[in-house]
């Protein structure tokens, strides 16, 4: 990303769209995957996160601050929403706010994985996205890609190994296992 924050502050709509596009997965992953909000609440929270970001662009100096800032705001928006829902149903349950901190680490991992995923060949990337991200069954994947259902598990396994390899390659050779499968 090249100075997206500065460009957004100057009113560059393309830069704003790029910020959203590159962080939409992070926000969605937190809201749906980590904080388990309903689709409806997630949609509201998603818009609120980016509204808060727009209002606070003046506080940000560098693009690299964006993921951490957005993750923190997403956490706060999700917490507010859950508190509001609890009040609506007059729930006396205590909200465990500490449990909302742990997903940050998971989301940083997710962002690394997202980048690694983009470096994989299309076939492997598609296999992983269909199975793990879109939750498609073996038979759906087999039908849509016109490949034998019996080969899906091994294809997924090979794609996971390739993805893992993306991280292993950053390590010194002495720390890498000799076989990835």
């Amino acid at each position, binding site marked *: 990303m090249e100075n997206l924050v500065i460009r957004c502050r100057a009113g560059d709509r393309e830069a704003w769209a790029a910020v959203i596009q590159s962080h939409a997965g992070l926000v969605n992953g937190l809201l749906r995957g980590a904080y388990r909000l309903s689709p409806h609440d997630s949609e509201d929270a998603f818009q609120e996160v980016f509204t808060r970001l727009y*209002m606070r662009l003046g506080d940000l100096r560098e693009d690299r601050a964006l993921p951490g800032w957005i993750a923190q705001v997403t956490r706060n928006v999700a917490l507010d929403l859950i508190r509001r829902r609890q009040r609506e149903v007059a729930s006396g349950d205590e909200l465990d706010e500490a449990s909302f901190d742990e997903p940050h680490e998971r989301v940083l*991992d997710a962002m690394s*994985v997202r980048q690694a995923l983009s470096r994989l060949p299309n076939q492997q990337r598609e296999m992983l996205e269909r199975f793990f991200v879109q939750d498609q069954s073996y038979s759906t994947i087999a039908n849509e890609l016109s490949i034998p259902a019996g080969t899906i598990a091994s294809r997924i396994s090979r794609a996971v190994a390739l993805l893992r390899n993306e*991280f292993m390659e950053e390590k010194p050779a002495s720390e890498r296992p000799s076989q990835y499968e």
Partner: protein
Amino acid sequence: MSERLDDDERLIEALRLTGDPPRAWIEAAALIPATLGDLASIERVVASEQFRSRFRESPESAMADAGLPATPALMAALRAEFA
């Protein structure tokens, strides 16, 4: 590089969190600057003590007077901002 991602279980868990939201959410968020107006005006309004106290009394009227659209996301963001 995350050391944690050496582990397949962790890698797959992270993979599950990488999905994009529905296209419509992204398109709606892309319209936020057009809906809210230029950043300098928003910052001026938000920094105004008069607006803050008006907003606490009557959020909708304060928004209307300031020429801000009373979208649910902006109302919620302002409530959080002034809490």
